[in-house]
């Protein structure tokens, strides 16, 4: 019986080791990437933000208008006219796939900027610098500055558009659409 006990103990150690080695401790939920191939080069993917539902934070120079209620935002004295927004991000199926921050300032002493940081947990992060002036069509184009994980080696652009009339939900005040176009380095496949 002692032999059985010892064999059990050894099996317990080995089994636990094998379990720890082979069973992933973290298994992130993934959604199918809704990618379309662009006719010239690269792939495009469309994300959107439903307003106001997907808003997590709005930090404004005037702290009284900040969201959510009770937010102690440093405000104009510390941050000038810098606006910070945090959102949940959805894919084309309207499923939340990540979070994003948008920082913007028109009068920062080192120059105006508009930036997005798009964080998709199972895939990585895209860091984008947008053009200050939107196009005549109402778009704002931006260039990807850096990517992490799946986006590490990619380059590309992002097009931002605010859509005020969204027909499929009466509660929606609008939608921010982000079209991400990415290109793999020459010789690699995306």
């Amino acid at each position, binding site marked *: *019986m*002692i032999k*059985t*006990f*010892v064999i*059990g*103990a*050894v*099996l*317990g*150690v080995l*089994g*636990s*080791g094998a379990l*720890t*080695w082979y069973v992933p*401790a973290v*298994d*992130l939920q993934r*959604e199918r990437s809704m990618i379309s191939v662009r006719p010239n080069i690269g792939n495009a993917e469309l994300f959107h933000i439903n307003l106001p539902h997907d808003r*997590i*934070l709005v*930090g404004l120079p005037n702290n009284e208008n900040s969201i*959510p*209620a*009770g*937010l*102690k935002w*440093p405000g104009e004295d*510390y*941050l*000038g006219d*810098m606006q*910070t927004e*945090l959102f*949940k991000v959805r894919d084309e199926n309207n499923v*939340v*796939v*990540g*979070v994003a*921050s948008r*920082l913007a*300032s028109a009068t*920062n*002493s*080192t*120059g105006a*900027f508009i*930036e997005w*940081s798009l*964080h998709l*947990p*199972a895939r*990585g*992060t895209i*860091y984008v*610098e947008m053009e200050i002036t939107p196009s005549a069509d109402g778009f704002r184009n931006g260039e990807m*500055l*850096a990517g*992490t994980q799946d986006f590490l080696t990619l380059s590309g652009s992002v097009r931002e558009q605010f859509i005020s009339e969204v027909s499929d939900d009466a509660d929606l005040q609008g939608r921010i659409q982000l079209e991400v176009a990415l290109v793999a380095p020459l010789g690699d496949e995306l």
Partner: protein
Amino acid sequence: MKYAASLFAGLVLGAVMFVLGLYLNPFMGQATVSPLAVTDRQVMDLSYSAVPANGILYTDHGESAVTPHPDRVAELWEPTVVDTSVFVTELFDGRGNFAGIGIKYLSKSEQTELIKGEALASSVWHIFLPGRGTIMIDQTENFWSYIRDVVIPARTSSGDNWVGSFHSVTTSGPGALGTARLTGGSGVFAGLTSESVEAITVRGYSSVTGPVSKDGNLTIELPEIAAATE
């Protein structure tokens, strides 16, 4: 039946021995000194309180020990973001003056391998420093030492808390020397690529409410152009 019970008891003992071995393994440790401590370039230190209630905003799936803050903030309960937290905080310079705002996304990493002492998370900082510009820091963080030396002792304590002094460099990559990758966005940081390291110092932790006293520090290596404007 006796043999089955004996085998079962052995299996349980083996599993417990394995867990104890993992927990007490003295070879699984993390650096307490930043790899940037020996750099000959200028560095910039940004510190912050890593206690969520002291920050501007903290949110996660809403069922962890840490309560989202402020009260009415949206929670990240959707399956794709349930393992992610968002922390927005004020950043302070080496003199303790306000330096800017930092937004930190932290997601559990699928690269986690507990058998190697790696409880990994992928985290990204999006930072604005007034008068200087914006940066993004991408890093892999290892919280194994923090979990082993602070979180578990707090949970096993009869008082549900831990008090002591714990310091660890959490950044473990993606840089070859265990440094984070920094990309400049606007202002003096435009076009910049550099390295960074994050460390935490913990003095109190409650298994009921999370960190009670916890400070974070970002050390950023600066090339000459960015350093000149500091």
